[in-house]
C-alpha cells in the first residue's frame, strides 16, 4: 500500500474504533466515578491505606491530598533513581545524577514523561517498573480525578463536598487503567512488542560482526504509557523503536489508546451533567481542531521546503519506513493534541510547518482532545472563559451548565489558563538569554534552534513530554528550569480547577431563561473553538513567527 493510502486507512479505522467504544466506554467512566458501591478489592485497599472511603472532602482538602500524594511520589521516584546502584536489576547502570533524577521524578509524576535520559542506557528494569511504570498509572489517575471533581462542581448544588481523592485515585486505577493495560499489554506482545527481563542480547550478524540489541519489559509500560497519555518510553527512540511499535497494527492500537480516554471523557461528562449533547459539543470542538491540525501537518510533510528534504526527495529523515509520512503525522498530531508526548517519528526533523503543528497543538493548551482528565478540565476552563467573553459582549452575567460564572469562577479559570503560557514564554525567554547554555544545547541553528527551545518549554509547561529531541537538556539549567515548568504547568491549573469546582458546587442551580446561551449549539461550539485559537494566537504568534513560521516561509 502506498504511504498516503496506508495513512488514510489508519485514520479511518481509528475513527471507526473510537466511535464504536465512545458510548459504552464513556458511560462506564461516568459510572466508575458516580457509583456508590465499592468493589471488594477496593475495600481491602482502603483498609491498607487506612482511609475512610465514605468521607467526602472539601475542594481544599482534596487539593492537599493531590499535592501531598504528588509530593511523596516525586520524593520516592527521585530516591529510586539515586539509589539505582543498590537496587536489583540495574545491569550495572549507576545512580542517575541529581539534575536528571529531579527532572525525571517531576516529569513522571506530572504526567509529562519528558525523557532527558536514554531509557535503555540509563535506567535499569527496577527503576523502570517500580518507579516509572507506577507513575504512568497514578499520574493518569490523578488527572482523571481532577476532571471528575470539576464535573461534580457543575452537577452538585449547595454543597462543599466534592468526593474523596483516594477513592477517585483508586477507582481510576483499579477499574479503568489496570484492566485495560493488562489486556493491551498481552495484545502488544502478540504483535511483537518485547516483554523481556533481560537487558539485551548479543547477536552474530550475517556479516560476521557482533551487536548487542537492547531488551526491556516494554509491553507492560507501552500499554499504560499510551492509555494514560504519559509518553515516556522504555527505549530512547520511544514509540519509533521497533520493539515498542513494530508494525502498523501496533501503531494503530497505540494511537487509539492515547485518544480513547480523553475522547470518551466528553461522553462521561455529558452523562454526568445529564445532557449528553453538552459532551458532544466539546468533542466536536476537539475533533475539528484535531482534524485541521492533522491535515496541515500531512500537507506540510508531503510538501517539504527544506533543502535536505528536497535533495533526499521526501521528508523521511526521522521517520520509519513502515509508518511513512501518513502514520507519522497521525501519531504526531494525536500525541501532542493529548498530553502523551510519545513519538513514532522525530518531530525535530519535521518541516517548519509540519513541526509547527505539534508545537501549536500543545500551545492550544492541549485540548485536541487533551490528556486523560487534563483535556476535559482544560476545555471546561476554556468554556468558562468563552462564556465570560460572551457575557461581556451582551452585558449579562454568564452562566454555564446552570451555574453563574462570577468573579471567583472567572478568576480561577483565568489562573488555570494563564499558568502554561507564563512558564512557556518566561522559560523560553530566560533560556534565550543564556548564550552559554544554548551553544552547547542546540542541535540546529537559526529559526529551528529557537523552535527547539520553545518546543521544550511548551512540552514541559503542558506536561506533554515530546521534544524537538536534538536539544541537549542535560545541563543543570535545563533540567531544573524544565522541571519547575512542569510543576507549575501541572499543579497551578489543578489547584485553580479544584477551587473553581468548589465555588461551583457551593452554588444553587440557576434556572434557564430565554436569555441563556444554549451551550449545545454550533454557535457555542464556534465560540469555544474561537476562544481556544484566539488565546493561543494572541499569546504565541510573536514566538511562533520567529521559529516555525519563519522556517515554513523560508
Amino acid at each position, binding site marked *: *500500500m*502506498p504511504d498516503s493510502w496506508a495513512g488514510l486507512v489508519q485514520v479511518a479505522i481509528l475513527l471507526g474504533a473510537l466511535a464504536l467504544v465512545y458510548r459504552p466506554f464513556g458511560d462506564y467512566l461516568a459510572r466508575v466515578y458516580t457509583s456508590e458501591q465499592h468493589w471488594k478489592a477496593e475495600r481491602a*485497599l482502603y483498609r491498607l*491505606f*487506612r482511609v475512610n472511603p465514605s468521607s467526602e472532602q472539601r475542594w481544599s482538602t482534596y487539593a*492537599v491530598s493531590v499535592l501531598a*500524594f504528588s509530593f511523596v511520589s516525586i520524593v*520516592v521516584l527521585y530516591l529510586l533513581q539515586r539509589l539505582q546502584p543498590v537496587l536489583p536489576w540495574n545491569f550495572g547502570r549507576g545512580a542517575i545524577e541529581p539534575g536528571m533524577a529531579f527532572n525525571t521524578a517531576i516529569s513522571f509524576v506530572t504526567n509529562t514523561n519528558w525523557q532527558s535520559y536514554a531509557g535503555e*542506557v540509563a535506567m535499569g528494569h527496577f527503576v523502570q*517498573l*517500580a518507579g516509572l*511504570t*507506577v507513575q504512568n498509572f*497514578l499520574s493518569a489517575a490523578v488527572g482523571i480525578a481532577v476532571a471528575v471533581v470539576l464535573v461534580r462542581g457543575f452537577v452538585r448544588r449547595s454543597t462543599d463536598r466534592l468526593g474523596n481523592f483516594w477513592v477517585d485515585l*483508586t477507582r481510576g*486505577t483499579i477499574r479503568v487503567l*489496570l484492566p485495560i*493495560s493488562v489486556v493491551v499489554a*498481552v495484545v502488544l*506482545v502478540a*504483535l*511483537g512488542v*518485547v*516483554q*523481556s*527481563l533481560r537487558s539485551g542480547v548479543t*547477536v552474530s*550478524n550475517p556479516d560476521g560482526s557482533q*551487536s548487542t*540489541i537492547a531488551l526491556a*519489559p516494554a*509491553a*507492560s509500560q507501552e500499554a499504560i504509557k499510551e492509555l494514560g497519555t504519559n509518553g515516556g518510553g522504555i527505549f530512547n*527512540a520511544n514509540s*519509533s523503536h*521497533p520493539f515498542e511499535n*513494530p*508494525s502498523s497494527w501496533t501503531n494503530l492500537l497505540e494511537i487509539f489508546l492515547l485518544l480513547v480516554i480523553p475522547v470518551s471523557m466528553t461522553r462521561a461528562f455529558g452523562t454526568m451533567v445529564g445532557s449528553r449533547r453538552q459532551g458532544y459539543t466539546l468533542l466536536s470542538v476537539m475533533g475539528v481542531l484535531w482534524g485541521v491540525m492533522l491535515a496541515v501537518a500531512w500537507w506540510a510533510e508531503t510538501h517539504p521546503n*527544506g*533543502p*535536505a528534504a*528536497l*535533495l*533526499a*526527495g*521526501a521528508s*523521511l*529523515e*526521522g*521517520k*520509519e*519506513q*513502515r509508518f*511513512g509520512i501518513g502514520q507519522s503525522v497521525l501519531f504526531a498530531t494525536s500525541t501532542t493534541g493529548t498530553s502523551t508526548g510519545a513519538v513514532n*517519528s522525530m518531530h525535530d*526533523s519535521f518541516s517548519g510547518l509540519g513541526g509547527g503543528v505539534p508545537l501549536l497543538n500543545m500551545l492550544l493548551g492541549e485540548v485536541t482532545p487533551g490528556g486523560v482528565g487534563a483535556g476535559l478540565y482544560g476545555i471546561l476552563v476554556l468554556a468558562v472563559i468563552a462564556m465570560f467573553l460572551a457575557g461581556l459582549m451582551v452585558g449579562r452575567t454568564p452562566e454555564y451548565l446552570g451555574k453563574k460564572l462570577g468573579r471567583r469562577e472567572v478568576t480561577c479559570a483565568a489562573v488555570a489558563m494563564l499558568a502554561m503560557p507564563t512558564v512557556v514564554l518566561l522559560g523560553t525567554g530566560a533560556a534565550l538569554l543564556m548564550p552559554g547554555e544554548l551553544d552547547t544545547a542546540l542541535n540546529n541553528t537559526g529559526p529551528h534552534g529557537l523552535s527547539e527551545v520553545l518546543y521544550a518549554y511548551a512540552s514541559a509547561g503542558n506536561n506533554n513530554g515530546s521534544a*524537538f*529531541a*536534538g536539544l541537549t537538556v542535560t545541563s543543570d539549567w535545563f533540567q531544573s528550569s524544565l522541571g519547575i515548568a512542569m510543576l507549575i504547568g501541572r499543579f497551578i491549573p489543578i489547584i485553580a480547577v479544584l477551587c473553581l469546582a468548589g465555588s461551583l458546587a457551593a452554588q444553587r442551580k440557576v434556572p434557564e431563561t430565554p436569555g441563556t446561551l444554549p451551550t449545545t449549539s454550533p454557535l457555542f461550539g464556534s465560540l469555544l473553538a474561537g476562544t481556544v485559537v484566539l488565546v493561543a494566537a494572541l499569546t504565541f504568534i510573536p514566538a511562533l513567527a520567529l521559529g516555525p513560521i519563519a*522556517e515554513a516561509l523560508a
Partner: protein
Amino acid sequence: MLKSLFSQCRAALRVLLVFTLLLGVVYPLGVWAVSRLPGLEHRAEGSLIERNGTVVGSSLIGIDPVFDGPPTRDPWFHTRPSASAEGPLGPGDPSASGGSNKSAFDPGQVELVRQRRQLVAERENVPPSAVPADAVTASASGVDPDISEAYADLQTARVARNTGLSEARVRDLVAEHTSTHGIGVRSVNVLELNLAVRDARSTLVP
C-alpha cells in the same frame, strides 16, 4: 493545616507503597508470566532469528551489514542510514536508539544527504538521481528493519551479481520478504532478505 498536610503525606506514602507493589511488580511480572506462553515468548524476547543454534539478529531490528571489499562487490542488501553510525552510511548502535533530529535546513544535513546519495549511487552503479529518499535519510529509531521496495529494487542487480544468483531469483526473494503487514506501507525486511539470499546462495553448486 500543617498537621493535616502531614497526615495526608503519610496516607500518600501508604497508598504509593501499595500501588507500587501492585502496578510496579505484580502487573509487569504478570504480563511477563503470560508472555511466556508458547507463541508469545518468541515475540516477548525480541523476535530473534536463529540459524544453526546461533542468534543472527531480530526480524524487528535493522543492523546494516558491513562489507570490507570494494562497494561494487558488496553482496548484502543494506538498511537505511542510522543517526548513530560513524560515517554517512554503515551500521548504527542497536543498544542505543534514536534519530538525528536534524532539520532539513541544517547545512550539515544537506551535505550528509548529498554524500549518502553519492555513495549509494556509486555502490549501485546508477546516477545519483535514481537513489530513493529512504536510502539517504536516517530513520527515527536508528534500527529501522525495513527499506522501501524502490531501494530494494535498486540493490537487486548488485546483490545478484555478487552472489551468483540470477536477478530474477533475487527479485523473487525480495518479493517474498515484502509485506504491508496488513495495513502498513509496503516494506522489505532487510535481515530476513539477506538471510534468504545467503541460504539460496549456499544451495548453488560452486
